[in-house]
């Protein structure tokens, strides 16, 4: 795999470029979720311009490092097409109950691994699709139940079975929600990677 450049509009999308785009999307997507769901104080977020939108990203250095680790690892795994899913689990701090689960399914076109030329899809089209998904994430606040208690988040990644677990990572269960409602959001595709987004939340036991 000789191509090391980020896919540019005139060059089409390469596997590495696609991996970067998707990893970047996850970084901004996770930041948006943390802001919109109020996991961290809104004052700790700052506005940046991305995808033609104003997005909020955290300024907390620890959190930024944590997310960067994940993003870097995701880039690599996306490039090797061995990651299938990224999940953001939001659980209550007191009793560890999972309240919300954001699931990003990744479909990777493995034929892109062969040294074909870059795929034809403009950066702009991909950006538009990503923008729609992020807007939807923002909009979910209108129907997701309030997170009453203080919450913490966790990131889970579903990879191929035979992957060697890298340092800093450990194995985990899927942390499903008991009794959940699910809503499927839009998906976007770079022609090499396709990302489907879905959010599951705890159904209230209120009559």
């Amino acid at each position, binding site marked *: 795999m000789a191509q090391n450049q980020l896919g540019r509009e005139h060059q089409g999308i390469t596997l590495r470029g696609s991996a970067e785009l998707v990893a970047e999307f996850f970084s901004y997507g996770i930041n948006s979720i943390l802001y919109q769901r109020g996991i961290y104080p809104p004052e700790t977020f700052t506005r940046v311009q991305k995808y*033609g939108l104003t997005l909020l990203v955290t300024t907390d250095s620890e959190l930024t490092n944590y997310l960067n680790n994940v993003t870097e690892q995701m880039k690599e795994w996306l490039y090797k097409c061995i990651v299938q899913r990224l999940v953001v689990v939001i659980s209550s701090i007191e009793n560890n109950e999972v309240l919300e689960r954001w699931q990003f399914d990744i479909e990777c076109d493995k034929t892109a691994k062969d040294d074909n030329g870059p795929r034809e899809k403009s950066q702009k089209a991909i950006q538009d699709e990503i923008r729609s998904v992020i807007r939807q994430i923002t909009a979910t606040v209108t129907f997701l139940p309030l997170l009453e208690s203080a919450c913490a988040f966790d990131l889970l990644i*579903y*990879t191929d079975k035979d992957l060697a677990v890298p340092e*800093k*990572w450990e*194995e985990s269960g899927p942390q499903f929600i008991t*009794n959940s409602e699910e809503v499927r959001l839009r998906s976007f595709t770079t022609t090499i990677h396709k990302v489907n987004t879905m959010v599951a939340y705890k159904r209230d036991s209120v009559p």
Partner: protein
Amino acid sequence: MAVVKWTMAQFLFEADLQGLLKLDTPIPNAPPARWQRKAKESGPGPSPLGVSPMKPANRSHSSSKTPSKTPGKSGSKIQSTPTRAGGDRYIPNRSTMQMDMASFLLTKENDPAEESPTKKEQQKAWAVNLNGFDVEEAKILRLSGKPQYAPEGYQNNLKVLYSQKMTPGSSRKNSRYVPSMPDRILDAPEIRNDYYLNLIDWSSRNFLAVALDNSVYLWNDVSGEIIQLLQIEHPDVYVSSLSWIKEGNYLAVGTSNAEVQLWDVQQQKRLRNMTSHCARVGSLSWNSYILSSGARTGHIHHHDVRVAEHHVATLAGHTQEVCGLEWSLDGRYLASGGNDNLVNVWPCAQGGSGDISPVQTFTQHQGAVKAVAWCPWQMNVLATGGGTSDRHIRIWNVCSGACLSSVDAHSQVCSILWSTNYKEFISGHGFAQNQLVIWKYPSMTKIAELQGHTARILNLTMSPDGTTVASAAADETLRLWRCFEMDPIKKKEKEKANSAKPSIIHQSIR
């Protein structure tokens, strides 16, 4: 309790993407989905292995496989609803599953022969079907180190936002008296509870036009008379927007079947029916003889109402419904707000050469922007308000593009109106208090909050003399608030300054 009601009303399984985009309309309750009913009746299915959402202690017991096979014995079958994106999605019922899984695990070593190869294949096929990939082959990894916690004492502020009963009043004493009760309450039965429509407008001749589903009624403030101006005969078509021409004798009506109609109010006759859009017309704004209309497609059309070929320009700057549209008072700029969270400011370009692009695009709002209003005493100052996901009011200078100020209104903003009598503006809100808030400009402090509506406010409009604000809400009432009443002395000065302006349009429209 307000919080409970809100969550109840909002939560629902909705796989329909269109419905998801419509953020600000209430989601009706739906019967339980098929998968829910099935899950209840048939019990266990694929389950995650030994996981309650607990931390490390549990994980050491679980193997690296996420199981997708149901226990071979005990006669339970995998549920037969295959997953398709957006369709019935099988969600395992965890509480019953764990027991079966546990018993399976305990006994599986004793009879491995139970599973025939074909059965294994079948189960594997179902697993791939249900999960989209072979979950058997997947490993779930978690970045170690504790997930970062928010600092101590941090309370999720959304809870405060959605459960507040009363916002603390401004600490300064109000320097003027604003009556807390409306002057008058009018009945507005069948008014459509749709955030994106603009269903009321008050003319310079003191007629308040209200669209109730497929009819438009005019109410005269002084005489109290009510006239039904029109009723759309087409079944299932409703009025989606209203706008009076400056002179107050013609009313533009936008409909859900993409028409823009022009009505002569004195003769109660339709003058024109302009069709150029292909989706409902939710917003209208006049600039002298140009009528601009915004549609659900995100396109804005300019219509020259004097000529036969009325469609003179198209502005494509939004990808979703244009719900806020307003020409500046000097006619130089058109501000538009859409469901795509963007605010565009368009120049008044003459001549049809090429595409017109906005001079400014503001992306800071995190929700649909319906409230768009130009400041009457300061040039180039625009106020915008965001929907439920955003809740902020922002003031912009459209020349420099700077956001002059921003304030969190804690509630969906449906409309903003600047006062012509005072240096203030008023905003209309939704959940939880359905109130109107009067703000002082430029200090952005609250002067008064007007409560009374029992459901979210949909639109605001101001009387021609600038003293009264009418609010239409989902509780099917129109309330008239006399909040900008002028001091008699100041009033006299103002009247001297005003002069009647001749109208050009009278002679032009046929």
